[in-house]
Structures are given as structure tokens and as C-alpha cells.
């Protein structure tokens, strides 16, 4: 699937055996987005000409040249990835830090808002916790928000809820997140809102 980190666009993929890889989102052959590709077994294949890549980025196979062992110079950059408590963390560059823990919380859903982080904070009245925003949403359980700035004024919001929430509470949390997005986008639109003319 496609994802965005400060270093640019990535193809985030999980092998059949369950291992997660974050590759640069560009096939070295013709520049096609690898996030349009597909995972078969332990390899990611480009949708365009089927060149396939392993988890460390090495090219494994070029279908149009079945007898050829691809040279080692054909590589896709890969970022360090760690999966913890249902959240996938991608490191830009070297890192030794452990990803934050969210004990007791589980991921609910992710959504994108046309609003920046400051606007989002203003819309929630949330307090910045040790990791993410703790938001006392009206009519829903305590919600934790993780935000990832995207291009322009967009923000990707990951919504986490307590692991013991009932299905009804989770639906209430999902609807609260929709309301939060509307509120934040209203504030953003009344302010600068350059996105409203471009999208």
C-alpha cells in the first residue's frame, strides 16, 4: 500500500509470512510506483513489467529475461520498520530509539484531514500526551490520536481506542473522528485554506 513519510512516498508491504517492509515507492526500471504492485510470497512485484524485489531491496527477478540473475546494482531503497502494538513505525535514516508503546490501546482506523496539526489540536482541545494526542471525545471512549503530516496542509490521523472498547463504543469513536475532521477542516478553511482551491 502507498504511505507517506518525511522522506517521501513509500510502498509499505507485508510478505506472505507476515514481515513488513517499507520500500521507496519507485521501481528503478521505469519509475512506476511500487505501491501499485503486488506481493507474491516474499517478494514485491512492480505492476508495470513485473520486476520483483526482496525485503532488503535487491532485485530478484526480471520476467522478460528469465535466464538472467539480476545484477546487485539494481536495488530499491528500504527503510527500517518496526511493528509494535498494532502500529507500524518507519524510521527515516538510522535510529536506535524504540517506538513508543500504547499499552491498553488498539488501532481503530486511519483518516486524512485537509488541516494541519495546529488546527487539529485547536479542534480537539486535546492535551499532548507522552505519545500522540489524548482526546476526551464527547460520547465516545478516551481516544488517542497519532498524527502524521502529509503534503501541503494534509494530516494523516491514526485513531486508537482502549482495547476493551465494545463495538458500539468503537463505532462512536469512528463517528467522533469524522466530526473532528469536519471541525478541523472548517477552522482551516476559514483561515488560510490554500487546499480548497487546489483540490
Amino acid at each position, binding site marked *: 500500500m502507498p504511505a507517506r513519510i518525511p522522506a517521501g512516498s513509500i510502498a509499505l508491504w507485508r510478505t506472505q509470512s507476515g514481515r513488513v517492509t517499507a520500500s521507496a515507492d519507485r521501481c528503478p526500471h521505469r519509475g512506476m510506483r511500487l505501491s501499485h504492485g*503486488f506481493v507474491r510470497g516474499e517478494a514485491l512485484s512492480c*505492476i508495470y513489467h513485473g520486476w520483483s524485489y526482496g525485503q532488503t531491496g535487491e532485485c530478484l527477478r526480471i*520476467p522478460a529475461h528469465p535466464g538472467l540473475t539480476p545484477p546487485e546494482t539494481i536495488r530499491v531503497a528500504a527503510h527500517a520498520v518496526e511493528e509494535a502494538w498494532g502500529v507500524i513505525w518507519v524510521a527515516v535514516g538510522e535510529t536506535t530509539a524504540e517506538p513508543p508503546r500504547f499499552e491498553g490501546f488498539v488501532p481503530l482506523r*486511519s483518516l486524512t484531514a485537509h488541516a494541519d496539526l495546529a488546527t487539529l489540536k485547536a479542534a480537539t482541545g486535546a492535551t499532548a500526551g507522552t505519545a500522540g494526542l489524548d482526546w476526551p471525545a464527547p460520547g465516545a471512549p478516551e481516544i488517542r490520536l497519532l498524527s502524521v503530516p502529509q503534503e501541503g496542509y494534509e494530516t494523516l490521523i491514526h485513531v486508537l481506542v482502549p482495547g476493551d472498547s465494545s463495538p458500539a463504543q468503537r*463505532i462512536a469513536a469512528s463517528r467522533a473522528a469524522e466530526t473532528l475532521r469536519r471541525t478541523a477542516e472548517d477552522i482551516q478553511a476559514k483561515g488560510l485554506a490554500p487546499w480548497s482551491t487546489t483540490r
Partner: protein
Amino acid sequence: MKLYDYILSPSCYKVRLMAALTGVKLDIRPVDFHPGAEHRGQELLALNPAGSIPILEDGDLILTESSAMLVYLAAKVAPSWLGSGGAEETARVQQWLSFSSRLTASLGGARLHEMLLRPGDFGALQSQGIASLRELEAGLVEQGLHGMGFLASDRPTVADIACFPYVVLAPDGGVSLDPYPAIRLWSRALRSLENFIEMPGIHRLHELKPEPHIEPGKV
């Protein structure tokens, strides 16, 4: 059963897909929609005064709305595609069937603007398309929380087929699908169905088939 069809039309594809999934053989009559505008000619206007395609003809019956065609095919040969018949599920099917016309107007309008230079407020069409995609995404999230992977039920219905094509082709109208993880999973589930067929821009899942192997000398 005769379908007046255009290969690049998502609404025509809905009917071809439904027929393939339910094992109905259609007699396909290709229409020169572009550049010939054959759907606005006398022969087709006699069948459908609204001048739109698809048109489905079965004996005396002439249908001009794709949602009605999906329901007709399902009722005739595969009633499970209409849902289980419970009040809530029946209403959900109708809800998303009606909703699908908003996808056609918004995402479909943006796509026609980009592909065939149709007039229209491109920015407004895209915004309406994004609003519709958000609604669909939220609906699928809630269905998922009820343990159901499809719009109206735990199995696909005509509602899913009615919404699927214009959603998947949203990028043709400059609307990205990247922000919608639930839509992505739903789209994969539909493309994994047995007897799924493609249209230009909507491909099958290559990973469902084993890797093809070609002998080195045969290329």
C-alpha cells in the same frame, strides 16, 4: 439478454461484471459512445430516450438504469446477491444502490471531464467525489466493526457491484484513493471473487495466480 455496451463505461462494466459473477451469458452489442455518440442516435434513443448507456434488453423488458439491471440479474439467477431479506440489510442495499448515483455524478463526472473534456466544474466534482469516498470509507469501517466485509452484508451484494467501478476508477478523474484503507481492502475482496472480470483501469489481483515461468530460450 442483450446489453448495449461501451468498454470504457463503468456503468456498463457493472452489468458485465454482475453477469460474469452470476454466470449469465450476455449478448453484447457494442455502442460507439465516443467519438460516434451512437447513444444519441435514433436507434438507441428509441430504446432509451434519455440517451444513456447501458441498455439491457430481455424480451419486452428494456432497462436503462444500471442498478435495476444488477437487481434483475440477481433476482433471476442469484437471489443471494440481493441480501438475506432482513429489514436492515434490505435497507442497506437500497441505501448504497441510491448512493452509487452520487459516485457516478461526482467521480464519474470528474473522469469524463479528464478523459473526454466534458464541461463542468472540475474542482467541485472532485470535492463531491472526495466527500462520497469518505462516506463509503466510514460505512465500510462500521461494517468491519460489525464483522462484515461488504457494504450491506458479510457477503457481496448488488450494492457492492453498483459502487465498485466508479470508486476504483477515481484516479482517472484526478482523485487519489491513497487515503482510504477500508476501501482498499474492500476493493481487494471484490477483485478476489471467483469469475471476476476486468475492464480497462480495473485489473485482477495478479498474486492470486502462481508466478508464470518462461523458459529462457522462448522469449
